[in-house]
């Protein structure tokens, strides 16, 4: 796979094709689907974290004007499922606080809300358990970690390396529980026409959603249509359907002839749309005095739901990042009475590059070596995990390029060396990594229609730029002007496409588009007849057997800590990435800085506070669950190397949606440490953790 497309449209910073419709409000999102006969759905949730629904009284609710249906676990239709997150309203068991135990459909959203409040619920309660700790005696080893990595790995003997090392670091780091919180809530509009179901859903994949719905409602796939032209962000939480999609479909079936709209409230998004597990990471590093690692190990403890297992692959990046002959990683889970954790931007790598990258900084400090130099000294020749060469690995170039741009050379490594206007100033660095993922199944169709090329594929645009970038790929694959290509995505009427997840979209859908273009030219030549058409699908890439494929990056942070109050501000963030070829610098930059901003948010702000007494996240709205605001990000810059990788796919791209969030939080912690000499090992870094040392 060495013939990369000749970049003509690829590499241009074209504006988003959907941009104007979005900023003028013409783009319709799932809840806004233009449908006749709309009804509105509101959910009833449990207020206990474990127990059983004994009875529900719905008379008062039914009496509210405009109410058309009330559904409870006692009355709901049976789904084709044997349990798990989506088996909603199938029995009376309560698995977590906030679980859906009923729904109301009414002619207005207000009437539905009123009626939902009037549903009376009698529950029996059982003691619940939501507290994660590393010393629980019921931690267990999952079969695999997400999606199918080995749970534990061990090469050599880290204990021996630790005992023999000249310098060691042994520390525990923790990341908080996080909620994805896309701006657009999870929302669905559903309609049944006999045995045909249509849903407008805010999803990262119309075909995966269709497959799940077809199974649950026992329908022929062809009888289910999922439509989703636009998504107001998902960050993984719309990667798999959650219960609202199922509930909207159930609700619509209860009111024949009507379209039912259901949007989760922000509060509901904290219990019904997935989250990132908190992690406890015990790190061990063993090194000699010149900084060569002889051992690196991470032991991860995190939570999952009793109802459905999800094991975040937090230890995975430690397996391949640095050249240490002795390496070990483990994952242990506590199964709790919590909603099911799930994907959130860069599952695994995002939390999993926190502990290790802070530990590397601690090692650099202990050795008196510059943290960039320490990383360079541990650069492996081949992938430490598989022994394969890297298809391309430019971490060192990212570190050096970033250091030059950031002005790292003048850095005085001592903490508190700089103070400006009452603020201590520090700088920090960390590495980023993300694998090149390719999904198994995607097909594109290219058709010549009235003098132009139409590309159809059921892909998703989460705001990332798919509408635009697929056109750029198709144009270069066909050898035509990008203006002569139109793209149709976000509908199961188009050929099957994989989920927008794992930063795999461009690799997977782009490969399908390139194959379709090649098939089209083979079949129809360069002067096609109107209506000429060809398909192409993603294929396995044999090079994945020979090469380790990853994108890399380096992140630089300037942190200020207020001398009096310990307030932390990050006025400068720089990311340098090596992520293969960049299809569109405009949309790419937005992915990188978006990821970095979310990483900053994780470092300083985000923190789902799970109250163990009640069993739910109590700061469940955007006033109390803090996400970085514009005022927190003053100077943020992302740049990238012109990286040529002939092995990954015909476009030479590696995927950029997630790497931006990887490493940022560690770089912030390292910069705060440099500013005032306090090492915060538990996220978020808040002023109360610094005050005692001021």
């Amino acid at each position, binding site marked *: 796979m060495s013939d990369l497309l000749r970049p003509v449209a690829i590499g241009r910073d074209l504006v988003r094709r959907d941009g104007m419709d979005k900023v003028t409000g013409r783009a319709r999102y799932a809840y806004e689907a233009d449908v006749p006969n709309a009804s509105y759905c509101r959910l009833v949730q449990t207020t206990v974290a474990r127990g059983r629904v004994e009875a529900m009284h719905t008379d008062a609710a039914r009496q509210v004007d405009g109410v058309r249906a009330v559904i409870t676990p006692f009355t709901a239709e049976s789904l084709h499922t044997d349990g798990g997150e989506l088996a909603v309203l199938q029995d009376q068991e309560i698995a977590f606080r906030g679980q859906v135990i009923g729904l109301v459909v009414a002619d207005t959203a*207000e009437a539905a809300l009123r009626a939902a409040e009037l549903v009376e619920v009698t529950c029996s309660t059982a003691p619940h358990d939501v507290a994660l700790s590393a010393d629980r005696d019921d931690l267990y080893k999952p079969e695999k970690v997400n999606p199918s990595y080995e749970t534990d790995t061990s090469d050599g003997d880290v204990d021996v390396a630790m005992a023999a090392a000249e310098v060691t670091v042994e520390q525990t780091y923790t990341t908080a529980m996080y909620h994805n919180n896309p701006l657009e809530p999870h929302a669905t509009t559903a309609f049944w026409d006999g045995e045909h179901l249509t849903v407008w859903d805010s999803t990262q994949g119309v075909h995966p959603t269709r497959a799940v719905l077809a199974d649950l409602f026992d329908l022929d796939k062809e009888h289910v249509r999922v439509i989703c032209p636009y998504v107001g962000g998902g960050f993984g939480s719309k990667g798999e359907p959650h219960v609202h999609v199922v509930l909207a479909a159930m609700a619509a079936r209860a009111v024949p002839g009507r379209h039912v709209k259901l949007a989760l409230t922000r509060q509901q998004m904290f219990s019904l749309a997935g989250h990132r597990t908190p992690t406890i990471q015990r790190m061990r590093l063993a090194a000699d005095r010149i900084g060569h690692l002889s051992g690196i190990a991470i032991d991860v403890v995190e939570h999952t739901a009793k109802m459905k297992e999800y094991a975040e692959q937090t230890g995975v990046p430690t397996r391949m990042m640095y050249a240490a002959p002795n390496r070990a990683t483990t994952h242990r889970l506590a199964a709790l009475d919590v909603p099911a954790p799930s994907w959130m931007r860069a599952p695994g790598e995002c939390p999993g590059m926190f502990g290790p990258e802070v530990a590397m900084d601690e090692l650099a400090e202990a050795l008196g070596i510059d943290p960039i130099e320490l990383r360079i000294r541990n650069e492996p020749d081949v992938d430490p995990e598989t022994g394969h060469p890297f298809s391309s690995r430019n971490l060192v170039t990212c570190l050096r390029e970033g250091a030059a741009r950031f002005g790292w050379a003048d850095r005085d490594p001592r903490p508190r060396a700089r103070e400006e206007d009452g603020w201590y100033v520090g700088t920090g660095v960390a590495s980023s990594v993300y694998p090149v993922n390719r999904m198994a199944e995607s097909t594109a169709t290219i058709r010549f229609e009235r003098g132009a090329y139409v590309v159809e594929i059921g892909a998703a645009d989460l705001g990332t730029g798919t509408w635009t970038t697929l056109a750029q790929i198709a144009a270069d694959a066909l050898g035509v002007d990008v203006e002569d290509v139109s793209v149709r995505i976000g509908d199961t009427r188009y050929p099957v496409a994989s989920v927008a997840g794992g930063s795999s979209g461009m690799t997977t859908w782009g490969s399908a588009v390139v194959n379709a273009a090649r098939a089209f030219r083979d079949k129809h030549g360069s002067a096609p007849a109107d209506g000429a058409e060809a398909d192409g699908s993603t294929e396995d890439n044999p090079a994945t057997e020979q090469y380790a494929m990853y994108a890399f990056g380096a992140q630089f942070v300037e942190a200020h800590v207020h001398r*009096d109050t310990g307030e932390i501000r990050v006025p400068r963030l720089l990311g340098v990435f090596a992520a293969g070829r960049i299809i569109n610098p405009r949309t790419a930059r937005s992915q990188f800085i978006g990821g970095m901003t979310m990483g900053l948010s994780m470092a300083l702000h985000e923190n789902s506070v799970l109250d163990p007494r*009640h069993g739910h996240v*109590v700061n469940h709205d955007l006033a*109390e669950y803090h996400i970085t*605001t514009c*005022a927190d990000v003053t100077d943020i810059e992302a740049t990238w190397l012109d990286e040529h990788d002939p092995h990954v796919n015909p476009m030479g791209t590696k995927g950029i949606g997630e790497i931006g969030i990887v490493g940022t939080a560690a770089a912030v912690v390292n910069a705060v440490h440099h500013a005032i000499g306090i090492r915060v090992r538990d996220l978020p870094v808040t002023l*109360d953790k610094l005050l005692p040392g001021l």
Partner: protein
Amino acid sequence: MKPFTLATPTDADEAVRLVADDPDAAFLGGGTNLVDHLKLGVATPGALVDITRATSAEITDLPDGGPRVGAAVRNGDFTADRRARERYPLIVQSVLAGASGQLRNMATIGGNPLQRTRCVYFQDVTTPCNKREPGSGCGAHGGYTRYHAILGASEHCIATHPSDLAVALAAVDATVRVLGADGERTIPFTDLHRLPGDAPERDTTLAHGELITAIDLPALPMARRSLYRKVRDRASYAFALVSVAAAIELDGDRISDVRIALGGVAHKPWRAHRAEAVLRGARPLEETFETAAAAELADARPLDGVDGGNGFKTTLAARTIVAALRDLTEGARS
């Protein structure tokens, strides 16, 4: 959300009558707090009476030289007023430090000090809360207390008052003009809010049906040398962990007068009388500032809690008081 009626009277007496006569009615200002509460089920009035046409949206000058700010003046408009900006930096800064531009354009001067606590248990009807449902218990005790009180709390309620504006108004000794069914009265701003005691359901000393028609600011020339310092978890759009409103007047090398109020620490804007007493007549020295802060916080009772509690607030409040006083007197000290 309970169904409700909405009245939009253009006259204050009418507005008062509509609410005073109906135990189930409430005033509606900009709605930025109350409408959230309707949706959350925290407030369940059967009738809303919009006061934005019934009270003044003007800032006028009083005979003694202080301005009168009508209850319907939008927070955003207040911060744009030239007189206010020149004469009361601490008040303007307090408003600008709160919420967001969009919210400030809706929120009213009368509604802002009457916004209710952000205690997460108060806002979640599935948890107990004595303020929302007297006698149900306090969900915050032993829970998430990062934003809770260190001063003046009771076993029944440990919530803080979230308004930034109210802290500045307490510092300058503003006066609240109130219209009730029995006529008009005025309340010193520092007496508007209450400590929770055994009746946390009552945030203020207003009776049902009493309408704030305006807030009068004293002429207070010393307010020109003033500031509002808000310490929060993010750079914008966050409630205070601790805030300090301060104004100072120097006479030679002495502090001739000083006003300090604290936010984020109590059920009401906390006027720092003890600190003021230490400072009045003293020289503006760092040690004196520290002594004053320590005197004010001597009775602080930090709380344990789920996410580490709020023990840091005592130190933080002390350090923020000192920093604010230092900023205000810089250049004046030798």
